[in-house]
């Protein structure tokens, strides 16, 4: 899985596609595969107790919630939004955002069922080790010690190179007019609050990138391993 990439890819996408897609739709599409499933993968014990016996298969396979990572889910969301709301910027935004998530997640060792429902075979580039089955703490430590960290830094860098996408002028001139949802939100929030909401995913993504790297490598001493398929130390746990 990727972590921060899913938060910041939408800014790069919107910078390239401009007002043809809704930023909010791209962002929701980018988060959609994990939005209601990640807690089941790690397991929760607060209030209700739930965890799956095999997170590796449950998260990306079938039976399980794997189809949410398949491009067919993006197509289904886009068709549903088109039929119900007749909004092309939202339909395209959800589709492109979900596809960005799906293709990003082919980078890990678990892979994604890109051609579901025709085949359940998963496509994996195997650039870093998927470690969710070890729990949230070890998964985090492994990811932010692996080429996954470089992948996240790449997308943060891509956004910073296109820094104008984060500017108030870009928000006002391109993002806001493309999506009536901002207008609706503007009934309740002032413009500067909308701007903060627009920038929040980038803030959140880069903030947690810094936080987890400091936690893994300053507070703790997990070893960096940027070799393909790393980190090797988490494979040794299996």
């Amino acid at each position, binding site marked *: 899985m990727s972590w921060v990439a899913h938060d910041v890819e939408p800014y790069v996408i919107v910078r390239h596609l401009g007002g043809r897609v809704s930023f909010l739709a791209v962002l929701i599409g980018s988060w959609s595969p994990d939005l209601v499933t990640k807690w089941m993968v790690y397991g929760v014990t607060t209030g209700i107790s739930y965890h799956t016996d095999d997170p590796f298969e449950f998260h990306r396979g079938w039976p399980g919630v794997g189809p949410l990572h398949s491009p067919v889910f993006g197509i289904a969301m886009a068709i549903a939004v088109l039929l119900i709301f007749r909004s092309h910027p939202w339909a395209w935004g959800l589709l492109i955002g979900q596809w960005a998530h799906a293709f990003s997640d082919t980078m890990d060792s678990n892979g994604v069922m890109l051609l579901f429902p025709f085949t359940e075979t998963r496509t994996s580039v195997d650039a870093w080790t998927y470690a969710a089955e070890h729990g949230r703490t070890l998964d985090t430590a492994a990811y932010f010690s692996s080429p996954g960290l470089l992948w996240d830094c790449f997308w943060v860098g891509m956004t910073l190179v296109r820094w104008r996408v984060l500017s108030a002028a870009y928000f006002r001139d391109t993002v806001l007019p493309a999506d009536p949802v901002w207008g609706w939100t503007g009934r309740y929030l002032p413009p*500067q609050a909308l701007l903060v909401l627009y920038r929040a995913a980038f803030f959140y993504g880069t903030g947690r990138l810094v936080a987890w790297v400091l936690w893994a490598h300053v507070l703790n001493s997990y070893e960096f391993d940027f070799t393909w398929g790393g980190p090797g130390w988490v494979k040794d746990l299996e």
Partner: protein
Amino acid sequence: MPDEPLIPALLEVSKGHPEVSEDPWRETLGTLLLYAVALLAYALLGMYWHFLLSWTRGFLFAFFTIWLLPALFRRWRP
């Protein structure tokens, strides 16, 4: 004015706000500094209290730190 198109009205409002300037270079050093300090604070707090690093709490932190606190500060400033 329920029949007024909302987005043009919102655009008019946003043009008049100092934080939503015409020129991106005019987004002041103060705004950038605010984001940098808030981001560092969030990262340092999140490093110790991981529960802050969830989606909802991250967004709440961003929202309250970057918008609400400066807004309150402006209101309280003599």
